[in-house]
């Protein structure tokens, strides 16, 4: 009896502990949600769990945007490409950098004073296994719970995930999430859900088998890990996986659609952006390209690379997975941004949606509760590898003329391997129901070659030549980008504009009827989000591959953007490469970029009339303590 009572008491106690733990985890979610609603904060790279990159702030608007002036700036001291955007939480800005992945905390009352800095010592060999320059996409914030301090969580190129005390910058924990000796790296911004820090993986160009891992923010302990390829239990498929859309495929395909053990080196890394719906408890992201790029070497559909996932945040188990580009032949890595919205579909039904502009030139919208495909439209009418996506089957109807294979040089394939959209974090204005998308306008020739797999070495197997798409200027290698406003329900583009180079970093929209974005040639621009009219621009010290953000501080709205040319489009410039096929084909396409910008990383902040903390000239002055 006593034993029984004891068991009951224990069970009760553990039940209480579980409830307390869940309540604590929910509290962290609630705190992040609350923080994200304030115009004063930008607590994750996409502003909030919906990843809309949209600010309801109207202080800067179409009427006064011409008055935007430089307010203050910050040099990161590093030259390579700066992707992503800084975070702002409770009056402190957290700035990340390219390799060696330094982190700075700046007091927004006196941003000239660095509150703390974290400068990790990394094995320089990490540089040699980075795919595409030495970029990093940003930071995550966990709000603390009274016992454990608030944390800034970051990735290092050498495969480490590190939690820092947000108040001091001291390392709280540091775990290994990859090994550069076998090509595993990290470039992604981690993502916080409840008390979990989620992180993906990089290195598909070295045959790295992709995975997503959750760590307990309080202890650094691994909670779960799921893979893009392999046996179902390792891919993490829920019992009801794809039950709403069985035609997407269900069980056994993570190995069954590969020859032999090729899934072990099959890629599917994910280094892009996550989104999360607290109501469904599902998070969403895309797995990337299969390895190697040479399709002939890996027969099969290569599941579950190139897949939009809906996974349970607590377990990692997948409720649905939709493979956009089965058996990829062009490196259309499917890791791009997932933006959540609530809209009424054509049948008049209010739905929870997920919109994803993919590398393959299609912008997909799914019901994020069950994976139903709602729309799949071309990002540009020049996309040619696919005729259309069949909404009933979910299958792309390929045009064989633009397929690739050994002993064949494919020509005029659109988009190029860079995709018509890459890692840029785009935005969604819920009042207009418009997505603002930064686009690449680049096509390519593609010739595969055979190569052996050696762990830790590049495993691509294709030579690429890239050049402007049909709407660009092929003689001068300009006209490589676009910006577009898209309605996911009607499939119509409200407006679109050409750009000299790719709009690589993405967009930020505001309730001031504005959309902001940076350009590779070093401008930040603001357009009227209704019409696309160019209203304001400013020349930055270097090209932009990150996305803008905005925050309010002491009643003033600021717009901030990181500059620092590089990334895949900038590899020729930053490494001084000349062979047009180098940089996986980027060098040729962007050979003119050097005539418009040079290297140099930093942050530039703007406000109306340049209002800034140093308008009070006594701020930041020396005072003997």
């Amino acid at each position, binding site marked *: 009896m006593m034993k029984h009572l004891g068991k009951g008491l224990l069970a009760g106690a553990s039940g209480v502990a579980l409830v307390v733990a869940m309540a604590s985890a929910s509290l962290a979610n609630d705190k992040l949600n609350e923080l994200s609603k304030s115009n004063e904060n930008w607590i994750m790279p996409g502003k909030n769990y919906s990843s809309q990159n949209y600010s309801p702030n109207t202080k800067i608007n179409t009427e006064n945007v011409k008055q935007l002036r430089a307010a203050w700036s910050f040099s990161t001291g590093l030259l390579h490409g700066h992707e992503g955007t800084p975070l702002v939480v409770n009056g402190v800005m957290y700035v990340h950098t390219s390799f060696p992945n330094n982190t700075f905390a700046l007091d927004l009352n006196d941003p000239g004073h660095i509150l703390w800095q974290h400068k990790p010592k990394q094995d320089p060999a990490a540089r040699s296994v980075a795919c595409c320059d030495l970029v990093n996409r940003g930071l995550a914030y966990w709000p603390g719970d009274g016992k454990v301090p608030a944390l800034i969580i970051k990735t290092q190129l050498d495969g480490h995930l590190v939690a820092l005390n947000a108040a001091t910058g001291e390392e709280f924990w*540091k775990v290994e999430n990859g090994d550069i000796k076998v090509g595993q790296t990290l470039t992604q911004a981690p993502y916080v859900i409840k008390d979990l820090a989620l992180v993906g993986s990089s290195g598909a160009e070295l045959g790295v088998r992709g995975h997503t891992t959750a760590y307990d923010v309080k202890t650094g302990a691994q909670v779960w890990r799921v893979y893009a390829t392999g046996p179902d239990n390792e891919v993490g498929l829920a019992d009801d996986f794809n039950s709403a859309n069985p035609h997407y495929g269900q069980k056994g395909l993570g190995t069954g659609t590969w020859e032999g053990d090729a899934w072990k080196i099959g890629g599917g890394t994910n280094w892009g952006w996550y989104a999360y719906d607290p109501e469904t408890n599902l998070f969403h992201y895309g797995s990337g390209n299969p390895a190697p790029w040479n399709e002939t070497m890996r027969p*099969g559909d290569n599941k579950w690379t190139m897949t939009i996932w809906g996974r349970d945040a607590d377990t990692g188990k997948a409720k649905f997975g939709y493979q956009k580009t089965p058996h990829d032949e062009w490196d259309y890595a499917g890791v791009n941004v997932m933006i959540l919205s609530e809209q009424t579909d054509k049948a008049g039904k209010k739905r929870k949606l997920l919109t994803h502009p993919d590398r393959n030139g299609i912008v997909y919208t799914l019901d994020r509760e069950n994976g139903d495909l709602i729309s799949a439209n071309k990002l540009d009418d020049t996309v040619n590898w696919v005729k259309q996506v069949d909404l009933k089957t979910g*299958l792309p109807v390929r045009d064989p003329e633009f397929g690739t294979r050994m002993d064949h040089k494919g020509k005029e394939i659109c988009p190029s391997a860079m995709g018509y959209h890459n890692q840029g974090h785009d935005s969604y204005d819920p009042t207009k129901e418009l997505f603002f998308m930064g686009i690449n306008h680049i096509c390519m020739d593609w010739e595969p070659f055979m190569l052996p797999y050696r762990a830790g070495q590049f495993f691509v197997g294709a030579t690429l030549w890239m050049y402007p798409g049909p709407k660009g200027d092929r003689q001068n290698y300009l006209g490589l980008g676009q910006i577009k406003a898209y309605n996911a329900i009607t499939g119509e583009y409200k407006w679109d504009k050409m750009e000299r180079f790719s709009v690589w970093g993405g967009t930020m929209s505001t309730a001031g009827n504005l959309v902001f974005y940076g350009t590779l040639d070093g401008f930040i621009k603001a357009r009227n989000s209704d019409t696309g009219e160019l209203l304001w621009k400013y020349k930055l010290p270097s090209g932009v591959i990150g996305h803008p953000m905005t925050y309010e501080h002491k009643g003033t709205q600021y717009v901030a953007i990181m500059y620092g040319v590089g990334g895949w489009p900038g590899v020729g410039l930053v490494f001084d490469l000349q062979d047009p096929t180098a940089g996986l084909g980027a060098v040729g396409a962007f050979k003119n970029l050097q005539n418009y910008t040079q290297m140099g990383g930093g942050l530039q902040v703007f406000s109306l009339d340049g209002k800034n903390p140093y308008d009070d000239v006594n701020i930041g002055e020396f005072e003997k303590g």
Partner: protein
Amino acid sequence: MKRILLPIGAAFVAAGLAISGTAAIAYDGTKCKAAGVCWEAKPGYPEKVAGSKYDPKHDPKELAKQQTALDGQSARNAKRAEHFKKTGKWVYDVSKL
């Protein structure tokens, strides 16, 4: 007969080529053997690459290296987290645990 057969034979060869060529052009990724299994070998290319001229000849030892690395990382991380739970101190160097 011979004169007749030759063209027929040639026609078969031509038809074979045509079928092959048509199949190449017809490959559009929509002919599924099962749900989610829609890949087809392109004409002239093998269903299986093992033993073909496109055999990547994967070395099982090389293929195993990634998972070995991940398992090692997970084991070390587990030791670090366990020590942290007990002591409140994060020690990265597992030789000091």
